[in-house]
């Protein structure tokens, strides 16, 4: 504290780290606005000479990125909606409803959390194949419908709901569905937002599973499409940067808007777990 240099050092290091970390993202934005070939010069330019949206136009007009964007939005939003309903109901049930073997099943689910999902990928693929879901939106949506992490998150939060509140409602003659809809869901609202953000970002960013299940070009999500485009257009840096912006900007915006909820979920999921 006596040393006047310490605050400068700490803040200087932080600013430097932030600059290094953000640089690739800012450069992506800048290069995406350059005209074709401009980024393939030395030394690498920082800012476009004449900012242009040509790359974005090209992506929509010739690379069909609009279609992939729509696929991503469709898949991410349906997974989020369906999995919220299932996970919130299940999490609440594990926390507050009494049924046979509840705690044992829950412990088991937690144990299954450590199994890497890849070990189940081939069996899951075959299961979906026989259900006729391979190469359809359903192939991506169905396996993501319920998640142990989501159930766990909701359960931890739901444990704090006082039992008296639920008892009182039961005595007043409310059935379980009314209790869930009118009392439990409003109380769980913060964790529901948290879970929604997690699910949305996770589904949007997911790569390996959609890559495996979706064979048809028209069904590709943005990450799968971007990976395939980038293999074709190795030299078109400006175009690929525009594709990267379109892929990653939506999730960054959602994250920035709902950051508080996201961080909360991260803490609950890891430290308290």
């Amino acid at each position: 504290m006596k040393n006047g240099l310490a605050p400068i050092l700490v803040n200087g290091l932080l600013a430097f780290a932030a600059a290094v970390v953000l640089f690739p993202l800012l450069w992506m934005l800048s290069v995406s606005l350059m005209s074709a070939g401009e980024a393939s010069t030395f030394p690498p330019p920082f800012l476009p000479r004449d900012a242009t949206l040509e790359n974005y136009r090209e992506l929509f007009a010739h690379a069909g990125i609009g279609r992939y964007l729509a696929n991503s939005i469709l898949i991410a939003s349906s997974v989020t909606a369906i999995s919220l309903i299932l996970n919130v109901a299940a999490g609440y049930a594990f926390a507050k409803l009494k049924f046979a073997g509840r705690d044992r099943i829950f412990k088991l689910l937690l144990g299954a959390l450590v199994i890497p999902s890849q070990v189940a990928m081939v069996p899951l693929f075959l299961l979906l194949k026989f259900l006729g879901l391979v190469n359809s939106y359903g192939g991506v949506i169905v396996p993501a419908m319920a998640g142990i992490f989501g159930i766990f998150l909701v359960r931890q939060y739901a444990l704090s709901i006082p039992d008296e509140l639920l008892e009182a409602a039961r005595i007043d003659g409310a059935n379980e569905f009314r209790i869930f809809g009118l009392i439990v869901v409003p109380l769980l609202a913060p964790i529901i937002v948290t879970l929604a953000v997690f699910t949305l970002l996770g589904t949007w960013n997911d790569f390996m599973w959609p890559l495996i299940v979706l064979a048809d070009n028209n069904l590709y999500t943005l990450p799968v499409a971007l990976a395939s485009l980038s293999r074709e257009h190795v030299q078109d840096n400006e175009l690929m940067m525009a594709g990267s912006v379109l892929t990653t900007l939506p999730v960054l915006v959602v994250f920035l808007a709902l950051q508080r909820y996201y961080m909360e979920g991260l803490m609950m999921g890891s430290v308290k777990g």
Partner: protein
Amino acid sequence: MIAVFFFLPVLAGFAMGLTDFDIYALSDLTNLRFVGLRNYLRLLETPLFWQAFGNTLYFVVVGVPLSIAASLGAALLLNSPLARFKSLFRTALFAPVVTTLVAVAVIWRYLFNTRYGFLNYALGQIGIAPIDWLGDPHWAMPAIILFAAWKNFGYNMIIFLAGLQAIPVELYEAARIDGASRWRQLRFVTLPMLSPVMMLVSILTIAGYFQLFAEPYVMTQGGPLQSTVSVLYFMYEEGFKWWNLGSASAVAFLLFLVIFAVTALQLRHAPRLGAA
């Protein structure tokens, strides 16, 4: 019923690894044959499998400490009472975690470009000759490790930050009264108090890093000279490019065994984690 639930995916994976499930069986199940442990034995004789395993191990052994060190360093800086604009810096440092892996891998492929990439330009400014990051078998994996550390360190940074904030202030006061320097406070108060969090972080990070896939898929396609083929990349090609699903299952199951063994080993040496 419980045992079935828990082991079902693992068992199914293992069972499939015992068959010669391939494109013929996919069209007609009667073509399926039980081959016992032959898939496993054949894998153990496949040089590319061992190379993939070695590459993945390289990625884990170098990448995990690097990424955890970056996380811890950033968390310590953010937790310093001297730091300003904490939430702003926290958000900035965390941002790569939420970005789409494929998209940022495309960016980094460009940053690593031998001729036009920024990294070689920056190195050139301090007199280092251009490196063929993604084209040289010696440099491709370090490049991927660098990228992975950038992408992932923010996650553990947040967990460390929570751990740091949970350390009682009195401990530091007592240390100061005893005349401990800042360095000794870090060494004898902060790090020991952080060890349960450290254990959790390293278990999660190691398990995660074993699952390397999208980075080589986008940046190097496993090359050059197969120096970045990871176990999962190998599994993907085996299963979903050549449709040897039985063999791919065996690969996935072996990876699971390795992760499971490493995690169990770590837990054995950390009986205190249960209290965390």
